[in-house]
C-alpha cells in the first residue's frame, strides 16, 4: 500500500507517495537530509531529533505520514544556527566523534527558543534525552552555557 503525503521539508514543498510504515527518520534521509542519524531503535538517544511544526521530535518514532501537511526542519535547513551553536562545541572540543552533534544541536536550538534564561538544571533537563558516549557531557554543558551567555550579551 502506498500513501500520498505532502509536507514542507526545510521550507521546500514536497508531494510524495510513501509506504505507510515509513519512519520520518528514514524518509528525511531518503531526501538527502543525512544530518539525521539513528543511534537506537528505542527512542533513547536523541540522535534523530528534527523539528516538526516548531517542536523537537524523535524522527525514529514518528511516522512520516504524521508530517503530512506540516513543516519539518532538519539541520540542513538550519545551517547558520547550527554553525553558531556548533562553534561553541568546537571551541570546547566537545563534538568529538560528532555523531550525536546534529540531534543535540537541534535540541539546543529548540531550547534556546523555548526557555527564556534557563537555569543549569533546566538546561540539563531539557537536553537529558540526548545521549553522548564520547564527552561525558561536561564540555557540552560548558559550550551550551557559553552559547546562551553570548546570546544574552548580544541582546
Amino acid at each position, binding site marked *: 500500500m502506498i500513501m500520498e503525503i505532502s509536507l514542507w521539508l526545510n521550507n521546500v514543498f514536497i508531494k510524495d507517495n510513501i509506504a505507510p510504515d515509513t519512519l520520518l527518520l528514514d524518509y528525511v534521509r531518503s531526501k538527502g537530509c543525512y544530518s539525521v542519524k539513528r543511534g537506537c531503535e528505542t527512542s533513547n538517544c536523541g540522535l534523530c531529533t528534527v523539528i516538526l511544526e516548531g517542536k523537537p521530535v524523535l524522527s525514529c518514532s514518528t511516522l512520516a505520514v504524521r508530517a503530512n501537511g506540516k513543516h519539518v526542519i532538519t539541520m*540542513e535547513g538550519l545551517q547558520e544556527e547550527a554553525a553558531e551553536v556548533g562553534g561553541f562545541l*568546537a571551541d570546547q*572540543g566537545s563534538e568529538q*566523534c560528532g555523531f550525536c552533534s*546534529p540531534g543535540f544541536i537541534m535540541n539546543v536550538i529548540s531550547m534556546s527558543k523555548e526557555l527564556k534564561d534557563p537555569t543549569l538544571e533546566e538546561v*540539563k533537563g531539557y537536553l537529558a534525552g540526548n545521549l553522548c558516549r*564520547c564527552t561525558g557531557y561536561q564540555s557540552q554543558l560548558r559550550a551550551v552555557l557559553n552559547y546562551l551567555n553570548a546570546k544574552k550579551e548580544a541582546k
Partner: protein
Amino acid sequence: MKMNAVNASIRKKDAMALVTGKPVYTDDIAPKDCLVVKVLRSPYAHAMIKEVKIDAALKVPGIECILTYEDVPKTRFTIAGQTYPELSPYDRLILEQRVRFVGDGVAIIAGKDESSVLKAMKLIKVSYEVLEPVLDFTKAKDHKVVVHPEEDWKVLIPLGPDKNRNIVCHGTEEQGNFEEEYAKCKYVIDETYHTKANQQAMMETFRAYTYMDAYGRLNVVASTQVPFHVRKTLATALETKKSNIRVVKPRIGGGFGAKQTVVAEIYPAIVTWLTGKPAKIIYTREESQIASSPRHEMQIRVRIGADEKGKIQAMGINTLSNAGAFGDHTPTTIGLSGTKTLPIYTSNAKAYKFEYEAVYTNQMAAGAYRGYGATQGLFAVESAINELAAKMNIDPTILREKNIVKEGDFMSAYHGETANSCALDRCLEKAKEMIDWDNKYPCKDLGNGKVRSVGIAVAMQGSCINDVDVASVSIKISDDGFYNMNIGATDMGTGCDTILAQIAADCLDTDVNNIIVSGVDTDISPYDSGSYASSTTYLTGMATIKTCEELREKITAAGADMLGCKPEEAEFDGNSVINLTNHKSISLIDIANNSMCGSNHTLEACVKHTSPVSPPPYMAGAVEVEIDKETGHLDIIDYVAVVDCGTVINPNLARVQTEGGLVQGIGMALYEDVVYGKDGTCYSNSFMQYKIPSRLDVGQIRVAFESSYEPTGPFGAKSIGELVINTPSPALANAVYNATRVNVRTLPITSEKIIMGMLNK
C-alpha cells in the same frame, strides 16, 4: 623547538563539518544502489544446523542472494584487529554449521531494500539440533561440552591453550617466591572480585559498505579503528590476496575499542565478492548489543601482603576471563589485568605472581574496550588496596603514598621498564587537595538519612604495544608551500588528525592550517597498526616528528641548491631557506613551486616509528558521593581526576577524553551490565535494557593535569585515551565502603547491592 600549536586548544579540523551535520559517515556516503545485507541469527546458545531451507525466501522480489555455512570459504580466521601474527586464535568461519551463542550468524541475506530482506529472513526455515551450552565461565574449564571441538582450530602464537578443555590461554609469571613472602606478611588481604561485560555503546553502530572498483578489486568503506587489519582479516576469510582489497575509513561515530574488531565488514564483503554488486550492512542497536565485542567479564583473586610498616612485600593476582564463543582479544586483554596493576605497587616488593586463564563459553565473544584488561584488573587491585588499608586501619591514600611507583623506579612487572616519567605521587596529592580528602574522609552523616563519603583509586595504562605497534606518516610539500600529511592512524572522534597536524606544524614551523591531513586509505596511507592500545599520540606523534625532520632536510637542500650554497650553510625557518653566509633567502613558496618544474628534488618524506617501551600514563581519581541509608541510592556529588599523560598536546581534547572516559567508567561502575538469561539469551539488547549514563546521572567532574615529561614521546607526551576509564569502579566502591562499611566486590555497584550489604551486616 618552539611550541605554538602544541599545547594549544585548537579546534578539531573536522569540527565544523561534524557540528553542521555534513554527510561524512559511512551510511551517508554509501552508494544509493547498495544491496542491503542482514544476518539471520541463532536463537540458541549452542546448536548444530541440520538444514536451512531458503527456497521460499529466494522468491521474495528483490532478493539477490542468501548465503549459508555451505556457501562460505572454509579457512578459519580471527576478527581481532591485531598485528600479525595475532595472539587471538583463528577460531571463526564467516558462517558455520555449529552456532555458539544466541545471535551467532546462520545466514547472510542480501536484497534491494530492507523490507524485502526482512521479509526473506522470516521465510528462511532452519532446523537445529539444540545442544547443551556452557554458560557459567567459572565452570567452563573441563566442562563436558566443548565449545570448539573442530580439528582445524589454530593459534599462531600459543599461550598455553587447550581448546578441548575450553581453555583459550593460561600461564603464570612470578618474580621471587610469592607464597613464601606473602606468608611472612603482617597484614594480608585475600579477596576475589568480579567485573562484568560492558558494551562500548558508541553512538554509531557497526557498519560498512563494499563495492568492486574499476580494477576489479574489493573496496571496503568501514567504520573501523583498524583499516589495515580489516584488509588482512577479509583477505584471510575470503581466501584471496590482500592486494585484491582496499579499505577506506570515513569519519567514525565512536569506537572505544569495539571497532578494533572486524565485527560487521565480512558480511557485505562476501556479498560483493560473490555478486560483484555494491552492498552495505548497518547494524541495528540490538545487533550491536547482542552480537558484537564487549569487555571481557573477569573474576580476579587478589592477594596483597604488607609488612608492619605498611610496605607492600608480596602481591598475587589470579585472573579468570570469559572469552565467550570466540577468542578475539582474549589472550591479550587478560595480560593487562596483571601487567597494568602489579607495577603500581611492586617496584620495592619482594615478590609478585600473576596467574591467568581464559575460557570459552556459549556467550557473545568479548573483545577490546577502552582500558582492555587493565580496567578489570584495576577494579580488583585498587579495591584490594582499599580493603588492605581498612584492615590496617589507615587512610587508603596514606597506604598508597607509601607504596606507589615513583619516577625512576624499576618496574619488573611492567616488561622490566623504568618509570622515566611518573607524576603519580603528585596526581594523588593534587586529587586529595581538590576533593578536600583530609576533611571529608571517610564520611559525614548528614543527619537526614543520607551520608556523604569519599573514595580513592589510582591507575596506569600504557602508550602503545612496545616492539609491536608501528606508525608511519608521510608528508609532501605542494604548490605554494602547503603540506599534505597522510596518516594511517584512524581518527575516530578523538581528534588525532588535528593533534598530529599540531605536532607537524610545530616541527615545520608553520601554521596548523597549512597542514592538510588525509585519513586512512590502505592503498595510499603509510602503514599504521591502527588506533588502539593508546598508541596514536605517542607513536604516530613520534613518526610525525621523524618525518618532519627528514622533510626539513630535503627542503633545506632544495633551497640551498637554489641559493647556490651547501645545505649545511643554509637554514630553514618555516617560511624560507636562508644562506647563513650571505643572508640571502628563498621563500618556501618558491622552493615548492620550483620543485614542480624541472626539478630533481623529492620534497616528501615518510618515516616509520616503533617503540621498545610503552611508557605508562598515570592518574588518581577521587570521588565524593551521597548515599541514602534507607534505599542504598547513590548520587555522585563530585569526581576529580588528576592525570599525568606527559605533555598535554591539546588541552581541550585531553580534558574531553578524560571527562568522557570517567563517565564511561561511572556507567561501568554503577549500572552497565551485559545480562544473560538461563538459556544464554542476552537481555541487555537495547538502550532501554542497557542504560548508559545520561547528563542527569553524572555530578560535577573536575579534571587537572600533573605533567611529567616522557623522553621517548613527542614533546614529552604519553597516552591518555584508555587510562581515564580505570578509576571510577574502585573509587566508587571505596566511597561506598567509607559510607556504609559494605564492600561491593561484584560490579556494577547497584543500590540494591549497597542496601542488601547494609541489611545483611
